[in-house]
């Protein structure tokens, strides 16, 4: 899952970036409203974390702009303004969830998974396709009940494909999910991950759609 984090405090931003990274998120962290706007238009995000008080504006205004543009990206407000009326105001401005500072990193990750899941129209926290089951919270994959060990990026590719198993994901889309904007992407990195996944889950587990990308194979 690729997440945009907008937070002006250097130390907290680094912590959220690292912490969400450890929970398997791909994180882009920015400091200002301007940077957030630029990043938001350049990439597809599965969720965003917004602080309210930013040096060059308000996170709520930013959110309002996105919603008016028709964006449905799930947004979690992460702010020290945590009075009930602030939370109500934030949610009514189009936020999907609200978390007050200081917070627990695991809770932040869980809430992000929850709002992303709801955004995709799913209620079940785990992903299923045929005999394959993926638990995003526990970062566990089982095939016919037997655990399969996957490194972080392979897990992320599989998660991206299983979220909407019948949709085709392009290589670029998968790369976006895998790498933050500051990370170097190997030229055939996605192919390598797909190859590794097929060798662990079975040849037909992931289908290649020529000229378009990948999707889950018929179970």
């Amino acid at each position, binding site marked *: 899952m690729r997440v945009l984090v907008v937070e002006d*405090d250097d*130390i907290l931003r*680094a*912590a959220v970036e690292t*912490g969400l990274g*450890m929970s398997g998120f791909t994180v882009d962290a920015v400091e200002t409203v301007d940077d957030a706007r630029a990043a938001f238009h350049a990439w597809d995000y599965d969720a965003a974390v917004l602080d309210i008080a930013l040096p060059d504006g308000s996170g709520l205004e930013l959110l309002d702009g996105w919603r008016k543009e028709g964006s449905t990206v799930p947004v979690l407000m992460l702010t020290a303004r*945590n009075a009930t009326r602030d939370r109500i105001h934030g949610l009514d401005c189009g936020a999907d969830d609200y978390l007050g500072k*200081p917070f627990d*990193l*695991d809770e932040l990750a869980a809430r992000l998974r929850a709002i992303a899941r709801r955004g995709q129209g799913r209620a079940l926290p785990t992903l299923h396709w045929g005999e394959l089951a993926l638990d995003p919270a526990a970062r566990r994959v089982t095939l016919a009940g037997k655990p399969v060990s996957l490194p972080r990026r392979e897990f992320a590719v599989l998660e991206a494909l299983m979220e909407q198993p019948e949709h085709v994901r392009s290589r670029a889309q998968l790369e976006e999910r895998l790498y933050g904007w500051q990370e170097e992407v190997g030229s055939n990195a996605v192919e390598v991950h797909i190859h590794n996944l097929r060798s662990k889950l079975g040849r037909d587990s992931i289908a290649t759609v020529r000229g378009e990308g990948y999707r889950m194979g018929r179970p």
Partner: protein
Amino acid sequence: MKSLRARLFLLLISATIAVWSAAAIWTYFSTRADVQRVLDRRLVEAAGMVASLVKDSNGAISRPTPAQIASSNQQAEYARQLSCQIWTLDWRLVGRSASAPTVPLAAQGPGFSERSIQGQRWRVYTLIEPTQGLRILVGDNLSVRRNLVSDVLAGLLLPAVVGLIALGILIWSAIGRALIPIHRVAGELSTRQPGDAAPLRTASADIELRPLVDAINELFVRLEMLRANERHFIASAAHELQTPLAGLKAHAHIALTAADSETRERSLRSIQSSVDRTSRLVHQLLDLSREEAEADSFPGEWAGLARAAEAVADEFAPLLERKSINLHIDPSMEGLEFQIDEAGLILCLRNLVGNAIEHAPDGSTIEVRIEETASCVDVVVADEGPGIPSKELAGIKQRFVRGSRARGPGSGLGLSIVELVLERAGAELELLNRPQSGLSAIMRFPPSAVRLNRALRSS
């Protein structure tokens, strides 16, 4: 305990007693004079009457019976005390009334005289009747006259004492009634909740109480403003502390759970700098609240600018060296003193120079200099950093506001603190972007708050 009621009562009652006593003394003297005059006239009349009786009898009654004389005044209560003697011119007693002594009542010639006989003091009128060759003496016992005056006075004094007691009771309860509005205000104040700053009901207050009620209401307004400020300040401070705390908590979580040692170490270092930042924020909050508490006191003392600037330069020396920034303190400020407390001046310079260092590129120069015009004396801290975007200049001095170009561990409080300190000294803070690049932070003092101390300059 001092009581308004008791004091009013004492004042009123002693004023009343004083006035009444004066009136009583006056009455005593005027009554005595009146009694004297009336009784003297009676003596004259009585003597005249005796003389005419003697004359009418044409010598037949050579000795008028005392009864005759006494009967003329029988009805009067004091008649028995009125004494009459008829003497011949050569002091032979012709006749006397029963109460009269046998010795002559008076020795002198005609008219009034006083004389003591057997311990009694007599006032006597002597009438000489030359045709009959008689001397008629009519006298009053003076003790009787005194009794008469004291009876009049006693008759006056008793009702006065009774009246005074009645008046005292009336005054006491009247004062009590008059003080009811004060009790009402006190009652309203005592039953008031601590958080209630609504004005007292002035409509019911009397004219005399209104200044008090108005003053109390004004105090309420000021207290409410102070409280609102404090609430706002505490809320903002708590709010500002949440972010570094969130950073601390998140990094602690990472340090505890991260698998690789590099991530753990990075988080621990972040925790360290986050603690530094939080303690700096707390320091600034304390500075701010201290300055706010003293906001009303005008500094009477004078502080040397050069000394304060040197102190700040010393504080920042390691940082300046690390960034190889040249802090240039204009020597022309030597000897200049500003009407501000020295700690406040150092606090201002520390914040402004600190900000400048934060934004100054490595190897640049920060200048602290004086600019004098007719209307003001400016202390300028100028850096060669990026300056502040012009649209942010207006709001940058607000509390907890940091510019979009903010760097490093700032709290957004520094400029607010500087402004508070300067405001107290009658000075103001102005921020200007320099023409090329950089920011001028200007402490603008009125000329009256600046003086040249030659002693400082020579040293």
